[in-house]
């Protein structure tokens, strides 16, 4: 006989079960020496590279696009990686984005037979597994491309340019792009469970979700085995909502006071506001894993004022504009680091920032812009970490997977192999860890 579900209990007694307190919502314990040094992660991304002629360092330097890091006094918290390559499996806008944090190849449609999206579980999702929190992960971004052109759309999924976070190899995670939506998810809509009607509505919502899960189980049973995996995503999505409901019933440790940034530039204010919310969610331990896409993987919209222009077009044609866009995005990232630092969270957090290519004119996947930031002695911060060999030659570049294998160690995760095919980790230290 199956275990009684929440609904069975309702049938028997008409009362809601009180579920055990989630560990993340318990008072935070002082870190014991044996615990891993890092507990939080934020993977950040921008598309179409920087002013890096043929993959040389170019403007991607502390005196150039990275100046905002210096301006905010954060140079000592950042390692600038040189000589790492992105996954160029198909068009690098697509594969370099989708595989940015998994280093897997991407699936493609073959002939008239279609398979859904396929890449790999991303690094941030492994970190999200480590500790259950109210919100599994926060994934935010700017822009969404619904389709590109027949040449691409008939071969590869457009979803590849829209997601750096992947729940598993078949399920990309869409970004939240509206700060208000993100705010409501983290802080609720202002109602409290002390109101009995609100408490009832939460119970009702759980009953609805139980019903959906019943339908889902029945539906899944009728599917061919290779299709069942797609329904896993739906189930995990519903479970996430259930978990959020459960946390909502507990004493709410998150207060809805994240600041709204009032920068006149809508692009900047939107992303800054969402960054503020992520920091607040980390502070009250409502989440420990996040991703920020400063633009979808092509960069098809205008960043900054209309006079600055589209990121993708700038990367192809006008590097004066590209430099401005790079500075805006690095500036956002530096702001985010500064906030984490001010909240004493930077020591526990690793934050990355990278792109899917270096030179956007030629879509070169060599020597991509890539940085790792944190505080503490474990990483080689405040310096460049240069891979041996000609950094502009992708064949001599190191795989990004080696960086992730090293970062896993900081979370106490032993994962010696990451990525696949020629993008797989090599077993050689990336150089990003101190003492390697």
């Amino acid at each position, binding site marked *: 006989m199956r275990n009684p579900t929440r*609904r069975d209990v309702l049938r028997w007694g008409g009362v809601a079960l009180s579920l055990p307190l989630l560990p993340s919502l318990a008072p935070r314990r002082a870190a014991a020496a044996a615990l891993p040094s890092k507990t939080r992660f934020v993977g950040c991304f921008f598309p179409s590279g920087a002013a890096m002629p043929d993959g040389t360092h170019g403007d991607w330097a502390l005196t150039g696009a990275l100046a905002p890091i210096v301006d905010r006094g954060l140079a000592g918290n950042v390692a600038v990686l040189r000589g790492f390559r992105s996954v160029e499996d198909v068009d690098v806008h697509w594969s370099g984005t989708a595989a940015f944090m998994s280093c897997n190849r991407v699936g493609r449609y073959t002939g008239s037979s*279609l398979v859904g999206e396929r890449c790999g579980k991303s690094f941030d999702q492994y970190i999200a597994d480590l500790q259950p929190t109210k919100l599994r992960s926060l994934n935010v971004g700017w822009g*969404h491309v619904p389709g590109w052109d027949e040449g*691409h759309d008939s071969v590869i*999924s457009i979803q590849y340019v829209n997601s750096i976070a992947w729940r598993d190899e078949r399920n990309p995670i869409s970004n939240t792009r509206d700060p208000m939506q993100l705010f409501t998810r983290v802080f609720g809509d202002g109602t409290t469970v002390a109101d009995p009607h609100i408490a009832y509505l939460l119970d009702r919502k759980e009953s609805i979700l139980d019903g959906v899960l019943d339908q889902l189980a029945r*539906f899944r049973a009728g599917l061919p085995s290779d*299709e069942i995996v797609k329904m896993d995503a739906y189930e995990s999505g519903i479970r996430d909502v259930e978990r959020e409901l459960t946390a909502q019933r507990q004493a709410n440790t998150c207060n809805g006071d994240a600041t709204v940034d009032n920068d006149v530039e809508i692009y900047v204010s939107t992303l800054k506001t969402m960054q503020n919310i992520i920091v607040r969610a980390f502070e009250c331990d409502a989440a420990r894993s996040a991703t920020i896409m400063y633009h979808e993987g092509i960069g098809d919209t205008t960043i900054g004022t209309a006079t600055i222009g589209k990121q993708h077009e700038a990367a192809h044609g006008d590097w004066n504009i590209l430099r401005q866009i790079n500075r805006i995005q690095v500036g956002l990232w530096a702001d985010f680091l500064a906030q984490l630092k001010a909240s004493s969270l930077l020591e526990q957090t690793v934050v990355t920032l990278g792109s899917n290519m270096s030179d956007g004119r030629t879509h070169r996947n060599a020597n991509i812009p890539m940085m790792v930031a944190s505080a503490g002695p474990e990483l080689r911060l405040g310096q460049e970490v240069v891979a041996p060999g000609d950094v502009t030659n992708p064949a001599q570049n190191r795989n990004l997977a080696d960086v992730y294998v090293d970062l896993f160690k900081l979370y106490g995760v032993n994962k010696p192999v990451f990525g696949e095919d020629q993008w797989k980790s090599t077993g050689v230290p990336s150089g990003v860890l101190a003492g390697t």
Partner: protein
Amino acid sequence: MRLPVPHVLGPIWVVVCTACNGLIGDTEPRPLEPLAPPPPIILKSSAPRTLSNTEYRKSLSSLLGYDIPASLFEGWTPSLTFSGFDGVLWSGFSGKATQDRIATVEALIDGVVASPRVMICEPEEASGQACATRILERFVPRAFRRPLQANELAELTALYRDGFMLAEGKVPSARDQFHEGLRVVIASVLLSPQLMVRVEPLPAEGERDLDAYELATRLAFFMTGAPPDDELWLAAETGALLEVDVLRAHAMRLLFTRTADFVDTFMGQLFDFRQLATAPADSLKHDFYRESSLVLGEIVAAELPASSLVAPGFTYLNPALATHYGVGPPSYAFTSDDFLRFETNERGGILQQGSVLSLTSTETKTSPTRRGRWVQGRLLCKTIPPPGPELLEQITAVSASIPADATVKQRVDAHRSAGPACAGCHQYMDPIGLGLETFDMLGKTRAYYDQAATRIVETASELLGTPFTTFAELNVLLAAMPDVNTCLAEKMVVHGLGQMPAADDEGLIFALSAPVDGHDPSFADLVERFVTSTPFRRIARPGATP
């Protein structure tokens, strides 16, 4: 942008963009020739498809009996499209999509018990169970687009009971409790994958006929972008739809009574203008949308040749649009803001409609290359592959070498004189686009690019070697190409079956697009042939031989 393998689309003709991607051998443009003789019609496989946001919204509207406002879908991640059409398999289940869907259904759920379409009875006993069961018996098959399976009704009735009990003591009356129970079960049905995914299970081996419900669903989504209406559902329930004559009759009924829905879901996606449907009602964009809908609607309803969409000889204008274009009746001819039919050769063609002209331009300029590529892709079904990496370097160099004061024609000519690698593709795009330069970013005609009238618009060009001087001549050349008919047939297959036509679909495309009594087929001809064809009514496991 580049792909390692050039994808050349279209089962019958292929644009050979020689050297365009650096991977195909010869450098001479090849004439476009049909292959003969017509090959057999091959059955297709079938893959599950998730409803797009639009299809989901229309499904909910149809089930609840009122229009769900599009505003409830703001903030949703836009649906992915497959070759420009709704219906991407297995997308739309990410965590965010799930949260959005739950929030939207929660916002709708209070209104469910006020819908006469749902509430077909009143509870007679305290538990309300008999009435709830009747409601579910009617509601759920329509939601799932099939009859209920064993135990399904019992499970859902149990869910109703849970909701009913949960509300005990929380709401004022037994009637409110009845409503709460219904809300729980109906919300979970609206969120169930049975509603959100269209599945046509493949036979264990070989091939099979679609059942009447599957056929009704295919037909309804293909023709209206929404689930079956009551009449179609009845034909599925009785099984009558399995008779070809009944199927044909329903297709024609939908085509002629819900013409606007057909135009919106098929041509609105094919030609992109559906995205203007949600523009504010008094905006230019919405006027563009209405113009396209009305012109194409008449071509469908009057059974004109489908290819006449290139140059129908008429358009529909309201006062604002007539002023904007500077054509049409004098303002006193309008007695209201409504659209009037107006005979003209200056407007109305798909390439003279403000929707297409603006959607193929940026806000600040037109692009002959972009427009030419659009014509190749949407009207002629020729995919121009994106340039490879070595070409990107060359493009950068060519762009840099063009003087700042070069005319549009000089710029475009520079693409084609920059060697075979560039010309290989640009010869198929730029000449067509040049012919449309007489229309600006908002579809207005222009003789000069600048207000000072110094930079003249030059439109003389050629289509695949045949010279033309005006867009009207370009239209004549395009309309005479058989490609327009085969392309519409091909796009119908993509839209109706959710699959790219493969090389072995030649037979189907030929059969659909063949002339009728020496004339180009009408949309009614195309639709009738398609929905009565075996690939529309039967499915086969991949590799099964018919």
